[in-house]
């Protein structure tokens, strides 16, 4: 325990010396001091020792997992003053919409999917408004809360599945190391993933098959019909919250409940059907307007599973060397975890212990590829839902079979930790150069969204900036990086003329161009735009008398046409 306290102190002190502005295109790793890595190594060694002991100290193991989650998910929250990820700000925009309107608009033209699955946003709006805690603060610390809760929910699920005591905590540890996809930010996916794990963790012991086909409560007591109804009601309430918050997670929940039932281990058929009814019920009744508009795309996706599974993969030949290294680290980490899981399964087979159910649970999320590309993200979501069971299988690669000695467990834990941790730091924190935002960038965006008249046009260098978090429905946004290549070429040839016509000739009551540091870093990494495009554009507009920089700080600039500047911000 003392060593863990030293680790936390070392981690905390290491963050005081970090210069975030000096980050390179491999992310946080490039600026984290040696004390940070020493703290991680000490934690890994301490956890290995914890698992190697004859009996597992559950509290101590849980503390190790919590500290690992703190070091992985808490580091960005401590280092940055604002939430990371540009898409967090879209979510903040929906919370802002609900706080202003007390309602959602399912037929709204922009970000309508969130209005059709409003549960997370309505809950966040209520939480923020009732507590008085700024939604920005909630979003900043959300990854730490959701990341830690996921790790413990994974441990509870493994406990419910009666996994080996060492496998429970080794699996929870690995689940933190394996999860590089960054879905624990302020989002519906993050909260529904935790709820999904809790539903499975409750379902397995309560609906476990007994010799007399009876059902038991969480204490192992025989449940009567009314108690059973309460437990089912509880599970359905959580499943209902999932169904109104997220499109994909309820489908994953139905799939897993179905697989549990198919395996003959858990009597979850009826529960799976009830959750499916709740899910379909919401899609048909609550999300009708979105489904009607996107039905054609959904049908096309369902017909193209291979395309779905590859559509979100980045072309590493096109991006910068640092970004290619980060993408490679993510793929390597996935490979390491899958390899370890494979070894774990082989060990289970060799020692004639249960493995079919575990293998089935590992592959269950792959079925999601059949139904949707999920806007190019499906493979990441599949991996997210595979992580818990991959982690349990990987844990069986390092925890005892009947003959293992403690030092082998320690060596295995340490080896896997040393292999996975550097890859995780690259994969999870590797895009931080453009996933974090400075005061200037947030202030620049606020200067537009807080004051511009409804119907204003906002031209963006790219979408990667803290935008749309206020009055988002009042604006039309045009990210240059998503325009056709010919348009970018036209802007490059005549920046003043093209941007001038965009900002001055349209029907919008006001028009702005925002260029930020994070947009530039993103484009240097991903190269959707030609090299130096945004710098050249900014320089050209600064030199032109036809534009005025109404917000001008080192990390962000907002231009308007000179005529609009003379008329005032409105």
């Amino acid at each position, binding site marked *: 325990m003392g060593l863990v306290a030293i680790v936390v102190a070392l981690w905390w002190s290491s963050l005081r010396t970090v210069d975030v502005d000096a980050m390179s295109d491999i992310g946080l790793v490039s600026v984290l001091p040696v004390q940070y890595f020493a703290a991680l190594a000490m934690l890994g060694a301490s956890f290995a020792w914890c698992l190697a002991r004859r009996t597992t100290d559950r509290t101590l193991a849980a503390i190790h997992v919590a500290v690992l989650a703190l070091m992985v998910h808490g580091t960005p929250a401590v280092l940055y003053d604002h939430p990371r990820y540009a898409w967090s700000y879209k979510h903040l925009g929906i919370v802002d919409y609900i706080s202003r309107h007390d309602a959602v608009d399912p037929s709204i033209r922009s970000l309508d999917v969130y209005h059709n699955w409003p549960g997370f946003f309505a809950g966040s709006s209520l939480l923020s*408004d009732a507590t008085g805690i700024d939604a920005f603060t909630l979003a900043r610390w959300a990854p730490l809360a959701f990341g830690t809760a996921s790790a413990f929910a994974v441990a509870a699920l493994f406990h419910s599945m009666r996994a080996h005591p060492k496998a429970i905590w080794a699996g929870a540890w690995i689940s933190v190391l394996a999860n590089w996809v960054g879905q624990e930010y302020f989002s519906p996916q993050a909260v529904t993933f935790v709820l999904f794990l809790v539903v499975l963790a409750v379902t397995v012991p309560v609906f476990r098959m007994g010799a007399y086909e009876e059902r038991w409560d969480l204490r192992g007591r025989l449940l009567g019909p009314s108690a059973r109804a309460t437990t089912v009601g509880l599970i359905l309430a959580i499943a209902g919250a999932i169904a109104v918050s997220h499109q994909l997670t309820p489908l994953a929940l139905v799939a897993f409940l179905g697989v549990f039932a198919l395996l003959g281990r858990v009597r979850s058929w009826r529960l799976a059907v009830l959750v499916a009814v709740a899910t379909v019920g919401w899609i048909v009744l609550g999300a009708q307007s979105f489904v009607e508009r996107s039905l054609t795309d959904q049908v096309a996706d369902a017909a193209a599973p291979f395309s779905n599974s590859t559509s979100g993969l980045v072309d590493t030949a096109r991006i910068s060397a640092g970004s290619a290294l980060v993408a490679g680290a993510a793929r390597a980490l996935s490979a390491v975890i899958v390899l370890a899981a494979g070894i774990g399964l082989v060990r289970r087979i060799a020692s004639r212990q249960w493995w079919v159910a575990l293998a089935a649970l590992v592959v269950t999320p792959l079925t999601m590829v059949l139904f949707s590309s999920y806007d190019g993200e499906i493979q990441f979501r599949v991996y997210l839902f595979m992580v818990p069971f991959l982690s349990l299988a990987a844990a069986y690669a390092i925890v005892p079979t009947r003959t293992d000695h403690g030092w082998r467990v320690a060596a295995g834990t340490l080896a896997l930790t040393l292999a996975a941790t550097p890859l995780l730091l690259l994969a999870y924190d590797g895009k931080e150069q453009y996933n974090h935002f400075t005061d200037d960038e947030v202030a620049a965006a606020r200067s537009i969204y807080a004051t511009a008249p409804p119907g204003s046009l906002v031209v963006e260098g790219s979408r990667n900036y803290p935008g749309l978090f206020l009055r988002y429905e009042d604006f039309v946004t045009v990210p240059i990086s998503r325009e056709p290549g010919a348009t970018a070429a036209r802007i490059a040839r005549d920046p003043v003329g093209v941007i001038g016509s965009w900002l001055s000739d349209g029907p919008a009551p006001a028009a702005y161009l925002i260029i930020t540091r994070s947009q530039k870093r993103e484009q240097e990494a991903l190269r959707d735009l030609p090299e130096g495009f945004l710098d050249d554009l900014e320089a050209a507009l600064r030199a032109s008398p036809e534009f005025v920089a109404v917000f001008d700080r080192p990390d962000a600039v907002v231009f308007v046409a000179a005529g609009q500047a003379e008329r005032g911000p409105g």
Partner: protein
Amino acid sequence: MIGRRLAMAVALAAVVAVVVDLPVVVRAPLALALFLACPGLAVLPVIGGRDPLLDALVVVATSVATTILAASALVLLGVLSPVAGTVAVAAVCVGLGRIRPFDYGAWSTPVDVGLDP
């Protein structure tokens, strides 16, 4: 039982804090406790508990689900406000806290033919 009564008391205190708009330093912990713990604490004795970790997760998950469902219902009706949401979640909490724990009758030990035989 103490947990249930405490949960209901905190729920009512949170309603008061939000309705009279007490300072954030008082309102935030009470409202956070209401939205993240009270409904789960109120219902936990009914469903039983065996494992402290799972119990804690069930408490939080039940409370978060209650908050999400109550807020969703109100937002669909177009009447979501801090007061309405807090009152709705507190009402559910009190309702859950009034469910009597069941008489289990004969205690027995389940036969373990679970996932890891």
